């Protein structure tokens, strides 16, 4: 991988010369064996302080958490102790893997492997280093079990699979160290839960095992240390914390566009000429956007402007894997001038060539912004450059708040959630696949995984019963048990076919049903462009044009699991709502935006259009208070509007909208619909709401919420994920043809039956826990309602206020929620009646 800054080619994991290493005391270098010292010297480098600190922790046999910004030689810091140890030689009795590296990305294991080979070669080490992922050929996998390498690079899923083999004790019996990369991206989700259980298992197989975590800068260092520990305790002294210095601060600009700043929308099309200008003046720019639809539009827009024929690429999760890899390789070579990307490029190896990061649309969180800025592989002593491009007026405020957050290094972060019971079920079955287990011993082991350190024995027993017999009150499956018990009370797998099923379905990533996008009209068709979520395809009519993989396509139809498209001949794309991947505003950022609104002193730094807009709001209404809640009501188009400035993020507002309209329905106000943005919620009704204290009373989170949640598609989706992870239903296999009758079991049907007949079943408990706990948005809503109680400021206006304009403009673009299934069905039927009787369908929006 080339480095533009000095023209010297070198692997990305190696350290840079930077001020903090120059300041090192020479005596520290003595910690390095001569061979390594000489190697560093030959390269003209000195080790970073944090690399030596990691070595020291290893010498003391301690686990260690390294928190370092990008470009800090983090990966070498993680591997250096193992390389030193391996250079000193392993004992003849040490067989099996010495160091296990786990990364959330398959591609990362491949890159790290490549980058590790050169020090191994140059240091003349007798170390075998291999990768093992879903892509590894069967023959190589079998050989790896017979003759494990010294260093194995893998993913959480492949680790779970390895642990389910009967020879796992031989493979991992001599394991000295496990390195978890991008720990911040694993510690708060179910993949992390699965990995934590795997680590607990590894610790059982090799009690002396050290754990090493590598993380980007995070708010809660102790939380990550707790995750890495065997106690789950934040203050666990067994884990050394190594914090690398931050290097130079990033230089972040906000694009104050020459064009008029839009009132609403998220596409920032107005700013693209200026973005293109910046790309022209830069070597390589990463252009981050928030959604795939945005990625397609921005890419298309830049392409139109591209008179210089600059090589510009596109990267998002829906594109075919091969195409994504090609783009990644081109960035690594420095062959591209810009790449438009979604969160699909948030993680991964560093690219030396990237010298500008552009964020189009609001950053949504300070940590996320820092992570993205860090993707520019800057040297520690040279500031990385970033450009924020707000797409509308509210986003100007949000960008400003995010920049302040980055400067103050106040990161967002939510408290960790307890480990998922569905993941535990999968782990228990996997454990049984490897061999018989003692329930008490397994319970103790599981509790040594941090996310499960508070697991109740009752929950464990219920999950175990679920794995063994289904866990139903109606004990009808005794003869179909998956686990049986031997005379000593140990559980063992009842049939080899359960092992096969387990191995086919291991993992916690539940994909939404997708369709392959293929070019061509015929059945066999042409090139595969990528995949789209099923619901997106369902929104299209034959003849509709849409943008995908950077091309304007015409939707031809759906053949089995394939979306067939042809190249469209010009014209404007009709991009339907494509909300996938939209993140809500973080609480921390919301607080900053609120504070900014309330402080007119801060407005001077804003673009003229924005500060004038705020002054206008002050004059016509009031500013939303930093504490308390502003609610505006006004009539418009014969309807009564209510706009509440909650700043709790789109998802929380979505829920609030459901609850508010329910309550207004009961109060006879005739709610007609609502729309939620990250900042506000707007509801319109036949009659105006007057008693705001009653409307926003906290008790709406009681019965209403329960009732709504039980029926909501959110809970159904959560149940489907839980049921798939726990092995109750099998994920849909892409490519498997639908043969008249459906091949997969419909999770909705099971949910309805189970909810009615055994509402306390462990998988329903797991679902509710995920939905309520995982939905931090409900928590945000609860906290907001408590905070504003008695402090609601209601302004009854004669017409719409300046601050409310953006959300009203949003109404025409957003799907309207709050309408029940029957009402929509009725609306569709009525429209047909009107059409048939010659009347004009009245699909008008309320403004």
């Amino acid at each position, binding site marked *: 991988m080339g480095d533009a800054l000095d023209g010297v080619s070198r692997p990305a994991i190696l350290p840079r010369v930077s001020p903090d290493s120059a300041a090192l005391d020479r005596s520290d270098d003595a910690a390095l064996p001569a061979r390594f010292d000489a190697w560093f010297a030959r390269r003209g480098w000195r080790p970073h302080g944090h690399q030596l600190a990691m070595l020291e922790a290893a010498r003391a046999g301690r686990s260690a958490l390294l928190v370092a910004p990008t470009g800090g030689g983090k990966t070498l810091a993680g591997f250096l102790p193992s390389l030193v140890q391996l250079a000193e030689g392993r004992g003849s009795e040490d067989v099996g893997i010495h160091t296990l590296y786990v990364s959330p990305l398959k591609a990362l294991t491949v890159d790290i492997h490549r980058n590790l080979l050169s020090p191994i070669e140059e240091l003349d080490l007798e170390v075998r280093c291999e990768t093992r992922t879903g892509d590894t050929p069967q023959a190589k996998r079998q050989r790896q079990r017979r003759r494990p390498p010294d260093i194995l690079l893998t993913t959480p899923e492949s680790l779970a699979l390895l642990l389910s083999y009967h020879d796992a004790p031989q493979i991992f019996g001599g394991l000295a160290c496990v390195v978890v990369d991008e720990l911040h991206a694993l510690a708060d989700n179910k993949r992390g839960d699965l990995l934590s259980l795997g680590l607990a298992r590894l610790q059982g197989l090799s009690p002396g095992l050290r754990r090493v975590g590598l993380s980007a800068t995070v708010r809660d260092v102790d939380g990550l240390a707790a995750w890495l520990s065997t106690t789950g305790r934040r203050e666990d002294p067994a884990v050394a914390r190594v914090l690398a210095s931050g290097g130079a601060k990033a230089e972040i600009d906000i694009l104050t566009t020459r064009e008029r700043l839009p009132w609403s929308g998220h596409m920032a099309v107005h700013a693209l000429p200026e973005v293109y200008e910046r790309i022209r003046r830069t070597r390589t720019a990463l252009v981050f956007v928030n959604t795939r639809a945005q990625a397609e539009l921005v890419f298309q827009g830049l392409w139109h402007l591209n008179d210089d024929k600059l090589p510009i690429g596109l990267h998002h999760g829906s594109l075919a894997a091969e195409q994504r890899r090609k783009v990644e390789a081109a960035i690594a070579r420095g062959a591209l001038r810009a790449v438009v990307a979604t969160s699909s490029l948030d993680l991964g190896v560093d690219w030396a060539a990237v010298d500008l990061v552009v964020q189009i649309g609001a950053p949504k969180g300070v940590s996320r912004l820092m992570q993205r800025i860090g993707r520019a592989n800057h040297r520690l002593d040279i500031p990385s450059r970033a450009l924020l491009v707000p797409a509308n007026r509210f986003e100007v405020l949000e960008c400003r708040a995010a920049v302040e957050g980055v400067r103050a290094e106040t990161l967002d972060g939510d408290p960790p959630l307890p480990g998922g019971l569905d993941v535990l079920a999968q782990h228990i079955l996997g454990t049984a696949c490897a061999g018989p287990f003692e329930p008490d011993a397994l319970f103790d082991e599981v509790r040594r995984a941090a996310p499960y350190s508070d697991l109740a024995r009752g929950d464990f027993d219920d999950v175990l019963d679920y794995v063994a017999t289904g866990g139903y009150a109606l004990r009808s499956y005794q003869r179909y048990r998956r686990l049986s018990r031997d005379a000593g009370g140990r559980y063992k797998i009842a049939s080899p076919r359960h092992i096969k099923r387990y191995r086919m379905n291991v993992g916690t990533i539940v994909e939404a049903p997708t369709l392959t996008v293929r070019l061509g009209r015929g059945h066999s068709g042409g090139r595969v462009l990528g995949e789209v979520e099923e619901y997106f395809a369902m929104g299209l009519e034959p003849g509709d044009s849409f943008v995908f993989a950077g091309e304007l396509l015409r939707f031809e139809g759906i053949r089995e699991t394939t979306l067939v498209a042809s190249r469209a001949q010009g014209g404007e794309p009709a991009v339907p709502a494509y909300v996938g991947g939209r993140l809500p505003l973080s609480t921390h950022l919301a607080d900053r935006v609120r504070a900014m609104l309330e402080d007119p002193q801060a407005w001077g730094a804003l673009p003229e259009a924005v500060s004038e807009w705020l002054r206008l709001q002050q004059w016509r209404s009031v500013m939303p208070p930093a504490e308390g809640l502003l609610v505006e009501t006004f009539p418009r188009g014969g309807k009564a509007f209510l706009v509440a400035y909650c700043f709790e993020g789109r998802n929380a507002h979505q829920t609030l909208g459901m609850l508010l309209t329910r309550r207004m329905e009961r109060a006879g106000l005739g709610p007609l619909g609502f729309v939620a943005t990250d900042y506000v919620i707007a509801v319109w009704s036949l009659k105006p709401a007057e008693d705001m204290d009653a409307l926003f009373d906290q008790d709406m989170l009681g019965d209403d919420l329960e009732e709504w949640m039980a029926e909501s598609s959110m809970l159904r989706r959560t149940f489907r994920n839980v049921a798939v992870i726990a092995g109750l239903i099998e994920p849909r296999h892409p490519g498997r043809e639908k043969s008249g009758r459906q091949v997969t079991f419909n999770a909705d049907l099971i949910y309805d039956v189970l909810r009615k007949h055994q509402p306390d079943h462990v998988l329903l408990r797991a679902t509710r826990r995920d939905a309520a706990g995982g939905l931090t948005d409900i928590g945000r809503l609860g906290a907001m309602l408590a905070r504003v109680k008695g402090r609601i400021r209601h302004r009854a206006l004669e017409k719409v206020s300046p601050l409310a304009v953006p959300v009203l403009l949003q109404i025409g673009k957003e799907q*309207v929620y709050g309408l029940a299934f029957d009402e929509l069905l009725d609306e569709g039927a009525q429209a047909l009646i009107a059409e048939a009787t010659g009347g004009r369908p009245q699909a008008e929006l309320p403004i």
Partner: protein
Amino acid sequence: MSAAAESPAPDQGALEVNGAGLIADLSGALYWPTRRLLVVADLHLEKGSSYAPSGQLLPPYDSTATLERLATVCRRYRPSRVLCLGDSFHDGEASARLAAEDRARIEALTAAHDWTWLCGNHDPEPPADWGGRVERELVEGPLLFRHEALADRPAAGEVSGHFHPKASVKVRFRRLTARCFVTDGRRLILPAFGAYTGGLNVLEPAIAGLFPRGFQATLLGKRQAFAYPKRALVF
């Protein structure tokens, strides 16, 4: 497509097949008021437990759920006769796997009504010792009841199940899918009644091909049924 099938019927739960006035109930049952006849299709009792031997332990409550719904709809219409259109039992072993409580539920139902089980492909020989008669087909006035529609016979008055029809419509960019009755005024296909029965889109050739002149699908909402012509449906 006839003009009648072209626009939604005013009373949307009502159907007319070969001159007989029928009610499409939201439960998926069909009621024929003048004959006091209640018809249900594809109960698929013990479908859930049929997966257990392979290691997939689905909640074993589907038979209970199905039979409770059937009992509820019987209480509401008080029919003198009940007809099950086949595939009442998911497989040959299903009746043996039924829990004692569910067995009692069936016996109470067959004792209280004049009951007929038609044979289906899943249960070519439905158990005869549960009360009720077993038939292959049944003719009643203008209607003929059988498990599966026959493409090569006249459609007039044929009422069947087997296909588990469901239909999708698009309203405001949202795709809504529901179980449905399908009819062209000559033949009628009932939705599946069983709790674990999935569905087949009515636009699939297997169903659509039975209605060469188009059809109307009556979609079952939560509180009301809605009639849609074929052209308004999506895959």
